[in-house]
């Protein structure tokens, strides 16, 4: 019977700047007391309402995977009041975390299937959590082969370079990076995500695709995938909306009668087609 609006208190353990333009940072948070961390059991794809007490709260996808013990990571782009407060925070500052919220990627349903992860721009945080979870030695054997296609505007914007390099070294995962326009020193693919997906042409049978990124990229990628006759229930994406409570009470993140924060944020394309076009 506890007040659901009171956050767990965590301390900032490390802050890593992810891109050259220095407006995206990954903040690593360590829980002040242990039992809170145990209560905070989450799956990849879920988000949390993190807050700088005194400034406000905002919903951010959890970038760390549950397999990374001890701390949780969030990737935050500097946009509004609260995110700017995050960018101004130093080590040891207090951050409130409420959650985990949302339904997260269906890791049970994905068992025994091939996984195609398509990410664009800085919406790669929950995908990083998913791929790290899948590659963990406890879970890798439950899943088929994994393909990651990750597009960005330019090399400076690519997130999690260290983790991506590790994945490239492994043989049980195929990583395809692309940038929109040619840039010197870039050895991999060039072009928008949709044509690259057509080139890689992942096969739809016994496979689930996870698409996350700016709305334009999602529209074009889904069109391509439908040409490669992917079924709508096999394509999942994670939606974003303005949220204030994150636990289905403040009523503003609804599409039709579904709340993005509790019935989502992960929806299959089939579900999205039933919902009214208002997101």
């Amino acid at each position, binding site marked *: 019977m506890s007040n659901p609006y009171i956050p767990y208190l965590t301390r900032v353990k490390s802050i890593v700047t992810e891109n050259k333009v220095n407006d995206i940072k990954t903040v690593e948070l360590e829980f002040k007391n242990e039992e809170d961390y145990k209560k905070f059991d989450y799956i990849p794809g879920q988000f949390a309402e993190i807050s700088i*007490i005194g400034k406000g709260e905002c919903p951010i996808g959890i970038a760390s995977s549950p397999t990374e013990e001890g701390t949780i990571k969030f990737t935050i782009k500097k946009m509004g009041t609260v995110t700017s407060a995050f960018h101004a925070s130093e080590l040891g500052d*207090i951050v409130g975390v409420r959650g985990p919220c949302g339904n997260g990627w269906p890791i049970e349903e994905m068992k025994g299937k091939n996984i195609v992860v398509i990410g664009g721009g800085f919406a790669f945080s929950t995908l990083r959590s998913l791929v790290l979870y899948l590659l963990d030695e406890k879970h890798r054997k439950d899943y088929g082969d994994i393909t990651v296609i990750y597009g960005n505007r330019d090399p400076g914007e690519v997130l999690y370079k260290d983790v991506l390099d590790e994945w490239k070294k492994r043989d049980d995962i195929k990583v395809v990076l692309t940038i929109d326009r040619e840039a010197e020193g870039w050895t991999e693919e060039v072009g928008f995500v949709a044509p690259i997906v057509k080139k890689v042409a992942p096969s739809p049978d016994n496979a689930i695709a996870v698409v996350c990124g700016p709305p334009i990229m999602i529209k074009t990628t889904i069109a391509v995938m439908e040409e490669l006759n992917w079924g709508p229930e096999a394509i999942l994406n994670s939606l974003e909306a303005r949220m204030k409570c994150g*636990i289905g009470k403040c009523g503003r993140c609804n599409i039709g009668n579904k709340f993005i924060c509790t019935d989502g944020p992960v929806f299959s394309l089939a579900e999205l087609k039933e919902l009214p076009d208002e997101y």
Partner: protein
Amino acid sequence: MEQKILKKEDIGKLYNEFSSEYKFYAPIKQKGNIVFERIENPDDIVLDYLNSRIPPKSILFPQMEVLFEYKLDDKDVEITDRQDLDEKFMIFGIRPCDAYSYELFANFFSFHGNWKDEIYLKKKENTTLIGIGCNTPRSTCFCTSVGGHPFNKENMDVFLTDLGETYLVEAISDKGKEIVKKLSWLSDAADKDVKKSEELAKKAEESFVTQIDVDTIVKNLEKSFDHPVWDEISEVCIGCGSCSYLCPTCTCFDVIDETDQYNNKGRRVRIWDTCQSCLYTLETSGHNPRDTKIQRCRNRIMHKFSYYPANYDLLGCVGCGRCIMVCPANNDLRDHLAKIEKIGKEEKEEKAVV
């Protein structure tokens, strides 16, 4: 369970009985409007009123409610939870439609996600409702069309029927039985009083002017999301949101942090919000899924008459008619519902004609 009689002038006695143990709320007149306020002096209670301007939702879900308070000292934050949640409320003079709206609130606040809004639910548990039946419903009331009734006793603890000089007192819930037991000085009700209250109930039921066929509306709304009827419905709306402020079943709220930086302390507060404001769904990136008033007016009606039935197979409207009375542009909900009801029939007529 035998009924009792409460004389109107004894309400002061009833107040003194409970004002120490309960926070006593009753309808009073404030600047010409009837509102539910905590009262100190029983003479302020207004008895001959149709319904309050601001719904009694403002008692359990006040317009500004503290979620928690915090103290900031440079590297640490100390959070203190609400301490006042076990105070007991007593609401006198609540109408059946508003009492039912508390049930809708409790249902909505415990339905989505695996968190329940403990603040509201605990307050609701500590609340005793002494309601009064509506002898003279307004022409804008339509509770009988949405499953309610002017003498609906279910959600009350003690139900009073206004017999003119006296009230017929019926204890409904066990909380109500204890209340009536405490009021030992009440006289027993005679059969003629009980008969009179049944007549009043029947007379009130027949006096309803507005009849709305809600089932067709719910059915029509499922497939009329992009129907041009929404342009007409939202044409003269000025987007003020008073309809949602004064609606007993509107639960949306905004959360803000209010910090007193001079004393390094503050509080996280939730305040009423309305889906009619353009900021309601405006994302920081600038994208706004509902940025025209057509979409916003549609969302309010769909939420109560389509999403509520789809999620909880309850109706999100208790038919109190406040949104009709308060609308500055007199954008009448009954006209909108009539237009939505006709959607199915027009196509049938067209089919029949062609």
